[in-house]
């Protein structure tokens, strides 16, 4: 098996790591960045951009730029670009493919296997969607692991002493908190909680709203309908948020944001940290309940925690750190890098899965991760009640069965409605699957015995089966989303993605060849002008002819539309020109 890489597929930023020499190292991308913005864009010429290139052009191309796609994972969300509808899995796959490419270049070998992280509070459908995204990107997803657990694994590799820790992970779009116990080479999750829709994006939004309100108050202009202006405000808001983590006050200046009858209007607004804290107080407070729930579920008091780890970029906000301190009575630890530890932990898990011999510091054996299912699983029983089969925070893998019976006389089929969530009533929970067990032997209500079995694997993915103990009839499903992509759809998406990748490649190659040809032409023409007099007439003519032939070839089409055949033609023409102009003294040109 080739090496398994670890990928942190984040809401705003993603990163990739691999284990080398007993340590998890972050792989920089081709632009030398240690994390890649999770942004995908389609330019007007049809080219696809990912990462910081995509992010940089967002303001001028906001309709064709997609960011925070993770928030749509496992939903029906789709975006239509140039007549093709992309779902969240396909967009995420473009980011994953980019990360995979960086890893391949770094390692100098093909990469086919990965461990990908997801928020601990992701439900089954969101996990499946993430797995599908990996497949579309050409990766066998060996394991989906939870982000806070992954962070704890990275921490545990260096700090193996027996202790209980809390991981407080406030990322770009999601909030997770996990209570984890480390000891005897085992990293065991005791409890986990969170909020799938709380993160840095919400802080940006709060600041954006404030700037829009202020602009309206002072200038009497409502910019909410102006897409480009809003994009600029959003970027400025994010920047201001980051600055306010280190300074007490910052000024947002956006010249020419809008205009009125007197001409252009500029936005100039000072935000203090106190104001920022006031704007985001509600958001920070929302993290308190999951923290308390997780501690409760783990059955421990905050004073029993040995360490509190902060993960995710949003934990740089001073008010967040203050809140954590208030909730746990502990100074949060800064011993791990909040942006990188998640990918590192995934790489460590990848190494464990590929049979590597990593060791937890201070233990003799290997390292083992025991994770839990974040949400309770139940089936709907009479009265719309959610009858729990698997309690949240059960250690994976779980195998559990229970006997049910029919509610009505002569009922010949039962509808197994599988739910995920903590609420007592079925309809308040998330439906994650439904199937029918038919052919139950007709009997009075309460006579048939139907065994319902839940199996959750180490990826947290659920299989439910129902069996009539009397007739032996059995029916089962692996839980899939309504919008879950079928195998054919995934195959198609893989083909599409590969085709795009090939197109991207030829586009890049065409650019390179054409610019080289252009450079050659410029040089030859310059040298020709300088040495015209020393040449034979025939030689001059020959060179000029070759020049115009090459020129024609590279201007016939834009580089984006060229085929490899045409590129070969250009390369041949370049060779001919070089040959013909060998007599010229072209010191500047280096093919």
């Amino acid at each position, binding site marked *: 098996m080739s090496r398994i890489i670890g990928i942190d597929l984040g809401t705003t930023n993603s990163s990739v790591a691999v284990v080398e020499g007993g340590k998890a190292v972050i792989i920089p991308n081709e632009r030398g960045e240690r994390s890649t913005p999770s942004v995908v864009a389609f330019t007007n010429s049809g080219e696809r951009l990912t990462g910081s290139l995509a992010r940089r052009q967002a303001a001028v191309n906001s309709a064709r730029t997609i960011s925070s796609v993770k928030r749509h994972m496992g939903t029906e969300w789709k975006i239509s670009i140039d007549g093709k509808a992309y779902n969240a899995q396909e967009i995420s796959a473009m980011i994953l493919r980019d990360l995979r490419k960086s890893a391949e270049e770094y390692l100098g070998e093909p990469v086919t296997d990965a461990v990908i992280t997801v928020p601990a509070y992701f439900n089954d459908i969101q996990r499946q969607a993430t797995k599908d995204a990996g497949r579309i990107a050409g990766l066998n997803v060996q394991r989906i692991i939870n982000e806070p657990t992954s962070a704890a694994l990275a921490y545990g590799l260096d700090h193996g002493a027996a202790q209980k820790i809390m991981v407080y992970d406030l990322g770009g779009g999601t909030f997770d908190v996990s209570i984890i116990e480390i000891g005897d080479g085992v990293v065991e999750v005791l409890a986990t909680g969170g909020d799938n829709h709380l993160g840095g994006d919400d802080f940006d939004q709060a600041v954006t709203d404030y700037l829009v309100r202020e602009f309206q108050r002072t200038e009497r202009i409502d910019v909410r309908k102006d897409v480009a202006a809003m994009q600029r405000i959003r970027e400025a808001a994010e920047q201001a948020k980051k600055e306010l983590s280190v300074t007490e006050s910052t000024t947002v200046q956006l010249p020419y944001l809008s205009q009125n009858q007197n001409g252009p209007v500029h936005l100039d607004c000072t935000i203090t940290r106190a104001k920022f804290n006031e704007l985001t107080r509600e958001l920070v407070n929302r993290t308190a309940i999951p923290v308390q729930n997780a501690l*409760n579920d783990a059955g421990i008091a905050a004073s029993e925690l040995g360490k509190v780890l902060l993960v995710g970029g949003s934990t740089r906000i001073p008010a967040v750190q203050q809140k954590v301190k208030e909730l746990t009575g502990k100074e949060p630890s800064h011993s791990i890098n909040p942006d990188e530890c998640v990918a590192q932990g995934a790489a460590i898990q990848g190494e464990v899965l590929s049979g590597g011999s990593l060791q937890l510091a201070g233990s003799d054996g290997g390292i083992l991760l025991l994770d839990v299912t974040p949400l309770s699983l139940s089936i709907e029983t009479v009265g719309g009640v959610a009858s*729990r089969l698997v309690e949240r925070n059960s250690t994976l893998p779980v*195998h559990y069965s229970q*006997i049910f*019976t*029919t509610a009505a006389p002569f*009922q010949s089929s039962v509808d197994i409605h599988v739910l995920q969530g903590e609420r007592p009533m079925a309809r308040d929970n998330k439906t994650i699957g439904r199937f029918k067990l038919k052919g139950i032997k007709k009997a009075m209500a309460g006579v048939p015995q139907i065994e319902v079995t839940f199996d959750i694997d180490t990826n947290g993915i659920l299989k439910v089966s129902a069996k009539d103990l009397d007739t032996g009839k059995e029916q089962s499903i692996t839980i899939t989303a309504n919008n879950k992509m079928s195998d054919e759809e995934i195959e198609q998406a893989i083909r599409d993605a590969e085709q795009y990748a090939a197109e991207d490649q030829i586009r890049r190659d065409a650019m390179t060849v054409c610019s080289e040809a252009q450079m050659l032409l410029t040089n030859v023409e310059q040298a020709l002008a300088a040495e015209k007099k020393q040449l034979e007439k025939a030689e001059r003519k020959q060179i000029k002819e070759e020049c115009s032939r090459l020129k024609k070839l590279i201007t016939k089409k834009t580089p984006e539309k060229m085929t490899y055949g045409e590129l070969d033609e250009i390369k041949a023409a370049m060779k001919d020109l070089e040959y013909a102009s060998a007599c010229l003294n072209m010191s500047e040109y280096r093919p």
Partner: protein
Amino acid sequence: MIENPHQVLGVSQNATQDEIKKAYRQKTKLYHPDLHPDDPGAARKMGEINEAYDMLMNPEKYAARKAQQQGYRPSGGYSQQSSQTGQQGYGGGQYQYGGYGQNGTAGDFTFEDLFGFGSWQESQRVTELPNDTPFVRTIVQDINYQRYQRALQKLMQIPGAERNSRWYYLAAVANRGQGNTVQAYEQIQRAVQMEPGNMTYQRLLRQFQQQQQTYQRNAGNHNTGASDMQRMCMGICAANMCCNLCGPFSFYI
């Protein structure tokens, strides 16, 4: 369900919690599917180990299941109808029989519950007990003065090892006062599981279940409005159940 969790983990019947934890970790290192990627049976084996460990660490969770499994007795024909489709008129749909007994909630019916005579107090008063520690007494006071937030904060400070049924009961009352109903419900269930004979806990649990019924009734999603006749009908039906199914409950789909 596993017959003998001690045997699965390879510990003696009177092993301490620390010994159990140690044995569990050793077992996981031998059998975890991560270490046996090619063995399809590994997940099953590990599932068993996980269950055995959970049974020994949280025995109260399993008490009801054990009862169900040992004494499983298919219950005779009650005129209860499926409300799965939500279309049939008289379903037991409004009363959640299915919820009973699940997770060990040995909830017993009273006619008060059935007919809604039980009074629902908005703020629950808690009485001090002779063996409450001074710290717990301050929590009780906080609850009685409706300072729920403070009571919860104090409860959270009590270490895991000292969290008994009394702790879960107090947490349930405080959480309910604070409006965290789902959490409160779980906590009172836990308290009852830990100390099934305690009438105070049972009474609170019943109030919760009753509230839920009201909630269901009002929501009217599954059945159309409850006429008196229908209520009567169900009352009888439920009373029937009480008499006949005192022991193990089965779960109706």
